[in-house]
């Protein structure tokens, strides 16, 4: 009972600990995807000129785990992850498909010629409708797609080596849920 005076201090410490955790570990800008473990929506898109072949839903049920990367030439954060995707392509670790989001064909083609093309196929979602069907709300976003074309996970923001190792590699090794 002598330690009763500590009650407010402990209460404060508990609240502070929760807020500290939330401040550094939770990102309010990251809205959990509603599409996880759902099949991909139907789409059939033309390729970025000269960066084909074109991209349709059926192409993503490829029999192995693949990535679907949403990118745009106007997106600054895409530049940050692009060299890493080029690395992935060089190492041939996983097939990456590119969904060009709300861009113009010329700008997209120019961007790919300048920064390299890590994609097996590209599709242009000029009006952004496929993006909305996928629940995309910002670029870049990267979907992990199962062998039968279901969405396994979504990474919001640029993919780095760390994120790849913690969130994508487990799927590739077959240990992901």
């Amino acid at each position, binding site marked *: 009972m002598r330690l009763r005076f500590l009650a407010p201090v402990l209460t404060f410490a508990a609240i502070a600990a929760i807020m500290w955790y939330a401040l550094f570990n939770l990102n*309010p800008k990251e*809205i*959990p995807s*509603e599409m996880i473990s759902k099949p991909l929506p139907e789409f059939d898109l033309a390729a970025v000129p000269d960066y084909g072949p074109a991209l349709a839903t059926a192409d993503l049920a490829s029999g192995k785990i693949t990535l679907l990367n949403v990118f745009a030439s106007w997106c600054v954060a895409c530049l940050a992850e692009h060299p890493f995707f080029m690395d992935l392509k060089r190492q041939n670790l996983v097939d990456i498909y590119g969904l060009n989001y709300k861009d113009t064909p010329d700008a997209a083609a120019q961007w790919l010629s300048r920064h390299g093309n890590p994609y097996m196929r590209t599709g242009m979602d000029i*009006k*952004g409708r496929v993006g909305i*069907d996928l*629940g995309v*709300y*910002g670029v870049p976003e990267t979907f992990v797609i199962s062998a039968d074309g279901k969405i396994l996970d979504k990474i919001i923001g640029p993919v780095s080596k760390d994120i790849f190792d913690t969130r994508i590699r487990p799927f590739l090794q077959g240990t992901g849920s």
Partner: protein
Amino acid sequence: MLRLGALGCIIGLLVTFSAQAVFVENQLDDTALEARARHISEGIRCLVCQNQSILDSNADLAKDLRKIVRERIQLGESDDQVRSFLVTRYGDWVLLDPPFKLRTVFLWFGPLFIFLGGGIAVFFFMRGRSQNRLDDQPEKLTASEKAELDKLLHPDESGRAS
């Protein structure tokens, strides 16, 4: 003084106008449908600028979503169907008025629980305090203690007496 009044009027007008500003691109011709579209849009949270509805957000995505809402209404869908179209893609998160579900119980009742918890804490705190006050009643001095105290307080009197 007059100038200040005029300035006040102008600011007042600006505020009222800006409050009415909504982003309308392609309004529906049917005013009843347009009203429904706006009513739905008002309740859909913009994913880019989080605490605004898509009706008063100027984000590109909000624009697209408003367009989709209008399209769906024109296709003859009910308000709930339009909402569920968005919820299947973006989750309950897009609804500014979250539905009551098992997952959202804490959201709805959390503040009540915290309030009640605080109330109980205050109740015990106050009760503890008033009990302490009863306990703190000073003990009566014994006769010898009283004599000693008297001696200390009035040394002169005792001196004069001797």
